[in-house]
């Protein structure tokens, strides 16, 4: 549940950030989510990656479907030397996902530095309380 919450909130942040900031603000979105939501570093990376992977690849996929893959086919040939437009959609997702995932990982690690709390403790808390959507204070 918390993972899904992290994915959705990171995606929202990333989308909103993209309107005003350069593309790499997705890493910022990941960082904020990572620092805000208490997650194990590995989980933070995974939620950041999944979130923006889905956001970017999903956006690309929808735009490309509506465009009969005209643009994606040409750019897949140009960038990937491939005739498969889906590869460009995947690459889009991976690039956004990696940037956000690393951001989330850094956020999560940074948070644990400042709070001085061990991530395992947070995980225990999460596991015992079962309040996956609990917002740590």
């Amino acid at each position, binding site marked *: 549940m918390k993972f899904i919450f992290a994915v959705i909130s990171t995606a929202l942040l990333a989308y909103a950030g993209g*309107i005003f900031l350069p593309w790499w603000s997705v890493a910022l979105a990941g960082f904020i989510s990572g620092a805000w939501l208490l997650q194990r570093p590995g989980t933070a990376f995974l939620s950041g990656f999944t979130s923006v992977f889905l956001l*970017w690849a999903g956006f690309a996929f929808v735009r490309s479907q509506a465009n009969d893959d*005209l*643009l*994606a086919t040409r750019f897949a040939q*140009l*960038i990937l030397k491939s005739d498969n437009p889906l590869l460009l959609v995947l690459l889009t997702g991976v690039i*956004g996902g990696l940037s956000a995932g690393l951001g989330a990982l850094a956020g999560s690690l940074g948070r644990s530095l400042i709070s001085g709390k061990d991530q395992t403790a947070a995980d225990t808390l999460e596991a015992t309380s079962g309040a996956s959507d609990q917002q740590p204070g």
Partner: protein
Amino acid sequence: MRITLFILTLIMNAGLIYVLDTRKVLPVPLGVLLSPHEGIWQNAEAMDADQGGDFRFPELKGKVEVYFDARLVPHVFAEQEQDAYFVQGFIHARHRLWQMEFQTHAAAGRISEIVGEKGIDYDRNQRRNGMVYAAENALHRMEADPDTKAACDAYTAGVNAYITRLNKGSLPVEYKILGYEPEKWTNLKSALFMKAMTNDLAGFDRDFEFTHALRTLGEENFRMLFPEVADSLSPVIPSGTPYETPQQALNIPKDLDSAYYGRQPATGIAENQFKPDPANGSNNWVIAGSRSRSGHPILCNDPHLRLSLPAIWYEMQLHTPVFNAYGATFPGIPGVVIGFNQDIAFGFTNAGRDVRDYYEVRFRDRARAEYWFDSPWRKADVRIEQIRVKGQTTVLDTVPYTVFGPVVYDASFPGKAGDGKAYALRWVAHDSANILKMWHLLNRARTHDDYLAAISHFNVPGQNMIFASRNGDIALWQQATFPLRWKDQGLFVMPGYDSSYMWQGYIPMEHNPHTFNPTEGYISSANQRPADSTYPYFIPGQYDVYRGIIINRKLAATYDATPDDMMKLQNDNYNVFAEYARPILIRHVDSAGLDDAGRYYLKIMGDWNLNNDPEQKGPTVFTAWWDSLQQVVYADDLNTTEKPVLRPERFVLLEALLRDTAYRFIDDIRTPATEDLRSMVTRAFRMAIPSIDSLEKKGRLSWARNKNTTVYHLLRNATMPFSRQGILNGGGTHIINATTHEHGPSWRMVVHMTTPIEAYAVYPGGQQGNPGSPFYDSFIDKWAKGEYYRIWFMTEGDKKSGRVKWRMSFSS
């Protein structure tokens, strides 16, 4: 430990962002390029996207409605004339902005700003040719005329209204790939666009090559290899037409033999390495009502240019209270360039006349501040060109301007094989004139007199301006400012220290070749010499011989013609050059000495129907063989290590052999034996067979597969997926359907002067310049098949028509 991990993660993240954001690691910044907000996905236009919209701009004086048909052709209905140009600028920019800016950057010698140092030589060449100087001179005249100034101002404001609305996401993809942003449009850019076209059509020169050829070959051989008039010429103005005697007598310099013909350039001589494509040309013709089924004239035009995506042309209709014109427009300038209005139709072919001469300038010293002219030293004007280079410091280039014009070549810019001497360029394109005024007036012309008044404003590039009107008149005028030349003036480099070598005036417009309602009932032009040798002026140029022959032959046999017949004629693949040349090859080849492959290809060529049709193999064999014959006949005579070398044109060898099979250049002067035509034709065939054979083995011997018609994106090899390759169509050099590998009919138009006008057109491109749009290359397949779209010349009454696919409305 944890802090190390944290910092390491931060560094990795920053590193990843850097790699994806810069051009220093990957050729394109993938992060920017693929992001949803800024990247290319924003350019993926939905197949069913609404192409219309409502816009408000304070610059507008009234309302403008734009109706797009299913082909995305806009029909602009404006309440005020100027508003039509504003909206034309807006729509050109919306569909073609990157192309407009790229082409005008190229014209101005600013490519290095985009591509870096590999553009510097090109940019210096543009600057030194005075392209910006020429555009400034044109702009001055354009802005001195209230009509053209108003049109340009409105057009520029429209382009800028669009640019202002752009954001990072909506930028055309080419900006995203190359990493820059558009600057504001200006009237100067419109002038630069016209100068780019001028350079394409009147920027050729052979002065250095001819000077060199005269010196190495001697005068007699030079005249044989580079004749002024072809025997088989079928001129624009039929032979036998009387010409008036020139009124102005020319003073011929006294020291021609020593200072002109006898010039001895020390070593090498400068060579123009950025010449326009010699295939730039066109066909146009018009038949009178006496030859059409309807009794009304039919006007046809197809300009041959390098094919490109986005295309050079953009189709549209401009309807205002004062005029209503439809046709091909140039993204970059206001108005309709080739087309028609409700009363007349107009089209163009290139005159190909030589309007560029070089003068050798003797500077006082290396400062190049003073040069010798008649008596003592004369000060040169100096223009310092600043060439900005992407990622590097700005390059400064000092260009002296003489009484002739800019010094194109000197020690600092010697050309491909230059001798370091200074050569100044005299070029009509530098002279100020308002050629936009011609289109301004043509768009609203109603009669032959209006047409004559319009074309009188035109100075360069020289064009055969063809005309038809609904009242039945047909006409053609070869119009431009053409210099008066004494015989041979400007063929060779001239001395720049003596004013007697300067141009002494211009041919008066009424002496330019022209015709009006000729008894033949048809007029045509196809870049051939406009008149036969009885024309009383010396008019060197770069002319085609064969398209003119076949068009005139076909038109002379045309009666009862329909627009459909004219479309077929524009796509005719008959090779009249081969009709004359093939018998020479077949008659003289020593077939007994050929092997199986040789006999096989000889049979293919013998069986060929003389049409350069896509599936025919004959044209490939014939072309390879003839070019090989040219090579073996001339290679020995022109063999020289000194550059530049110019090969004689194809008609020269063909006509020489038709006259006399014992042509003096046949003998290979490098061998003791005396070769005859038989041995040379056979040798040429044997030399050509390996390449023919290898094409056959690769399955590429058929004409279309060998030719591989390609419409390149303007960035060519850098963006090949944006190009269209492997278009299987016929045509070729010397053929009415002039389609070669990457060159050919860039717009085909047939206009039937009925009431209302019935017209057809097609071009090898699409209305949208965006490679992510379904309208990017949507006309190409139809063009390749030789088919046309029926033009919708929309009327006020059609506004509710179901043919309106999208609407745009503009108000203040």
